[in-house]
């Protein structure tokens, strides 16, 4: 494991340098903060059956036992037994479980960050019904407090918390957004003082897929809804969530929440970004400390509802044989299964489902911040092969998804493997096939 240790020191941001004692203390603090009856019950329930391994694409691709999902939280299981379990005093008294060590934590950095997308497939297979992915998320929090978040994630989270965008750009995203509007000839609603819908945008789209940004603006305009972007809360992603910095995740989420409150929005619309949806839809209120006074919706479910309500009409896209990748944060962890399919049906798409689709879809391999971690790339590619094979096996010519990070991951694979398919945005396809409904805007 010496190689892991060496990579861990290389992977640290300078501000994360800590003594081993401080690291362990930090991890234990983070862990104590996280622990409640629910997570304790999950840790209690594991029977070491190893079945979760069979759901995990990292294990399936490598058959390396260390990628067994529940093994990734082993140090925290150990800490739980020793510190907080019902028999913790006995464990401590008899020395049955050792204290976790900084060395051990460092080894686990690879398992908790590089080789887990927090995609939640393991949570679906566990015969005891343990939400393993939720445990991993909590373990990441403790790792963050131990100063062991991978440097890419840590730095981006720090930057986003400070500036609102995860990394510096030649021009601020506000300017980029307006430039995209000009480039695609679509009006960008920006900084309105009141709006029913607060829009935000994935950094990935701004950097790589401006068409998707334009598509969002176009569709909103087509629907004639009252909406706006806000310069002070523009980015959908939350690197605090990836890095495991709970407080940072809160600070980053607050940027959007505050803007939504400011414009008295009824809906915070999450664009095509999976983890942003999880962070805002299923976690933000807890961090905010009270229920949010507005709804958080993903653009696909929003559009599907508009379709059902008859306010949105689409023409046939003529896309030919098509397959669709379900982003894990949306379908498995978010429950959005039917919305993209309703949209595709309205687009006249002949959908060839992947072998594992819907809630059982394999993750693209880039989620959970893994795409950003440079050293994780070789393992990620290895893991992706199975997914790419599944896509190829459908024989589809068109490949759609509804998450810009998934899209970016597949694009990356396209160049790495010289793969012959291009991932497309479902939103973009919707935007290019809008049919007027006599609903003037």
């Amino acid at each position: 494991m010496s190689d892991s240790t060496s990579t861990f020191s290389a992977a640290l941001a300078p501000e994360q340098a800590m003594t081993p004692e401080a690291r362990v203390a930090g991890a234990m603090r983070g862990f104590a903060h996280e622990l409640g009856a629910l997570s304790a019950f999950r840790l209690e329930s594991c029977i070491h059956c190893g079945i979760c391994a069979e759901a995990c694409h990292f294990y399936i691709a490598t058959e390396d036992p260390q990628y067994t999902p529940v093994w990734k939280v082993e140090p925290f299981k150990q800490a739980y037994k020793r510190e907080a379990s019902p028999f913790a005093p006995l464990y401590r008294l008899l020395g049955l479980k050792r204290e976790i060590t900084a060395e051990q934590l460092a080894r686990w950095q690879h398992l908790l960050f590089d080789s887990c997308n927090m995609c939640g497939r393991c949570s679906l297979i566990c015969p005891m019904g343990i939400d393993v992915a939720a445990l991993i998320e909590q373990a990441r929090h403790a790792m963050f407090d131990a100063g062991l978040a991978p440097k890419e994630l840590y730095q981006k989270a720090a930057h986003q918390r400070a500036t609102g965008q995860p990394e510096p750009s030649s021009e601020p995203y506000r300017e980029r957004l307006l430039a995209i509007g000009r480039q695609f000839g679509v009006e960008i609603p920006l900084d309105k003082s009141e709006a029913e819908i607060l829009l935000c945008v994935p950094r990935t789209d701004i950097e790589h897929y401006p068409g998707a940004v334009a598509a969002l603006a176009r569709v909103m305009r087509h629907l004639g809804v009252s909406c706006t972007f806000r310069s002070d809360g523009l980015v959908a992603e939350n690197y605090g969530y990836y890095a495991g910095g709970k407080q940072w995740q809160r600070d980053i989420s607050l940027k959007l929440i505050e803007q939504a409150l400011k414009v008295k929005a009824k809906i915070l619309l999450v664009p095509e970004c999976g983890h942003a949806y999880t962070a805002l839809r299923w976690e933000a209120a807890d961090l905010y400390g009270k229920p949010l006074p507005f709804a958080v919706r993903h653009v696909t479910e929003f559009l599907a509802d508009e379709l059902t309500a008859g306010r949105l009409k689409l023409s046939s896209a003529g896309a030919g044989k098509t397959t669709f990748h379900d982003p894990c944060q949306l379908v498995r962890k978010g429950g959005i299964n039917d919305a993209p399919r309703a949209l595709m049906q309205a687009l006249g798409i002949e959908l060839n489902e992947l072998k594992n689709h819907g809630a059982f879809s394999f993750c693209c391999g880039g989620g959970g911040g893994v795409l950003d971690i440079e050293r994780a790339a070789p393992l990620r590619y290895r893991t992706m092969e199975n997914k790419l094979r599944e896509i190829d096996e459908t024989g589809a010519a068109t490949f759609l998804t509804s998450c810009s990070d998934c899209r970016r991951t597949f694009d990356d694979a396209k160049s790495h493997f010289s793969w012959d398919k291009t991932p497309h945005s479902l939103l973009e396809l919707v935007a290019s096939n809008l049919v007027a409904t006599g609903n003037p805007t």
Partner: protein
Amino acid sequence: MSIGNDELTVGYMLMKHGVSRRGFIKYCTAVASTMALPPWMGPAMAEQLRSAARPCVVYLSFQECTGCLESLTRSFAPTIEDLIFNTISLDYNDTLMAAAGEAAESARAKAMKDNFGKYVLVVDGSVPTGAGGAYCTAGGRTAVETLREAAKGAAAIVCVGSCAAFGGIAFADPNPTSAWPVSAIVEDKPIVNVSGCPPIPEVMTGTLLQFFSTGQVPDLDQHRRPKAFFGTTIHDRCYRRPFYDQGKFAKTFDDEGARNGWCLYELGCKGPTTYNACATLKWNGGVSFPIQSGHGCLGCAEPGFWDKGSFYSALSTPAWGKAGETAPHRVLELTAGAAAVGAVLGAASAGLSRLRQHEREVDEDRTRS
């Protein structure tokens, strides 16, 4: 081997009572068969016994109910064993002998003196040691004294019945007389336990007969019982065993299962843990035995049978404390009490964990500020 001239051999005395050699061989063959001895042992035993000197038996009764003697003397018809024991060998038995008082006691002293080192001491009943042995005295002598004295010249001691063998009912909790089995008092003599409450008469006679013919104590089990009779459990040889194997059990003494003769395990039959020959030799000359009569085995041939829980609760059921301690409502009380203790401990440990959690968080805030 000429028996005609020797009036002190068993053979001669049998002949005098009209038992022929063939009759005796036949009897010994049957005894060997019941004892599961090799078949050739029967005739061999007969030959040895016929030429053996008249054995001397001294039968002492202590803290007992005379049930064992009843069993022995009420064995079927006037038979050969009856002849051998009552008529030929028995020199002292205070219940059966005509003599009484000083005459009886001096007969015993004479028999013991004449046959010193050769007689078989049969003991019936447990030996009370409490109150200086006062609970059982005869002729002004305590049972302990009498036993110790009689044991001195005995070739072997045969403990007849569960009281002499294991202490029996008198030994049962709380053992008010501080009763002990013979083996606890006499330690330097070969002891054979023929347990049962009472023992099967054929088992008593068979054991003695074998000792008379060979002059040796038979193969004994861990409780010093002759393996020939106590080698298998009642359950092993029970004719109702197939019903056990099929899982067919009588649930009450008057249900369909009981009428059909199904296994009595659930009604508390101790057959599976009781080593005795009831299921094969049976009682009253082979007429029946308890299970055949519809009642489970009480396990009377086993040590401490009186203190092993209810006769009517199955072997696999819990048995602790006094009667009724394992009744469902008492078990519920016990488990509920334990659960309450558990809840308190659990709440305490959760509280402790919360406290530790809180401390770490305060620590965290301090680090932050």
